[in-house]
């Protein structure tokens, strides 16, 4: 087993908290490069179709975008605070903060549902005749909008699953004040979701 294990819960069970966190970070790097590639495509398309991107972005709802930004930032803070709560042996507060995070995550998805619904209603989805009539630049914008916010929304759903998974383990005392790395890793994943949105928001909603 590892020489670097920071804590040992039993004589036989070895735990490598640092190693497990490193594994989570390596996974996060693959996510950053996945979205990074999409941001690269976005920047080249935008560079080549600046006017079309400005015109297309006017169709996005800045208010919903801002509300969802605030939701993700607050949920990022609540999941971070739940780690501090568990470290201080306050299991109840830790679980409450995780529940708040999940409620916020769900409301993000509800907003997304209505936002996407409005776009479909206005014929602004890939393949719609109205969108095709607007030219290739606006089509590229909306293709990237749906693909990137869709992939991000998928990450929100996965993140919620991860948080539910660790929340159950906290409830069963499988994760405790001196064994909380899995909660930290779920938190890291959730912050990644927030981090990606921090760039998606200005690049799609705020080009006016």
């Amino acid at each position, binding site marked *: 087993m590892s020489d670097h294990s*920071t*804590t040992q819960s039993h004589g036989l069970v070895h735990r490598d908290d640092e190693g497990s*966190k490193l594994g989570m970070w390596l996974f996060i790097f693959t996510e950053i490069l996945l979205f*990074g590639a999409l941001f690269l495509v976005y920047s*080249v398309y935008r560079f080549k179709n600046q006017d079309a991107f400005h015109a297309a972005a006017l169709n996005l709802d800045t208010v919903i975008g801002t509300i969802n930004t605030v939701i993700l930032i607050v949920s*990022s803070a609540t999941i971070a605070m739940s780690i501090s709560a568990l470290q201080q042996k306050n299991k109840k507060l830790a679980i409450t903060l995780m529940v708040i995070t999940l409620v916020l995550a769900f409301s993000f998805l509800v907003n997304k549902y209505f936002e996407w619904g409005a776009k479909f209603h206005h014929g602004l989805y890939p393949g719609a005749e109205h969108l095709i009539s607007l030219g290739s630049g606006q089509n590229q914008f909306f293709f990237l909008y749906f693909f990137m916010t869709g992939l991000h929304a998928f990450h929100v759903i996965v993140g919620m699953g991860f948080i539910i998974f660790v929340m159950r383990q906290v409830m069963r005392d499988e994760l405790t004040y001196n064994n909380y790395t899995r909660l930290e890793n779920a938190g890291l994943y959730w912050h990644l979701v*927030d981090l990606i949105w921090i*760039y998606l928001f*200005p690049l799609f909603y*705020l080009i006016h």
Partner: protein
Amino acid sequence: MSHDTHEEVHITPYKTYYIILGLLLVLTAITVGVTLIHLGTFSVAVALFVATIKGSLVLLYFMHLKFDNKLFLALVAIVFAVYTAVIAITFIDYLSR
């Protein structure tokens, strides 16, 4: 059960998170506000600059890079440096066509 850890366990106080949360909300208000006053070409630069400050706060405080093993901070820095280089090389290509 042994409690000896090689390093002190860092418990981030709630106050730190409140401050960072407040800063992130203020920065969000700034980005949205900047959009309302039209800065033209500068608006992209301002938006990306503010987003990068927000992202750094999330990475350093929420993701604990400031308090954890500095190896993680170094790795994240390398990943972002490589990504910045890829963007730069791509645009050197497009701008010189």
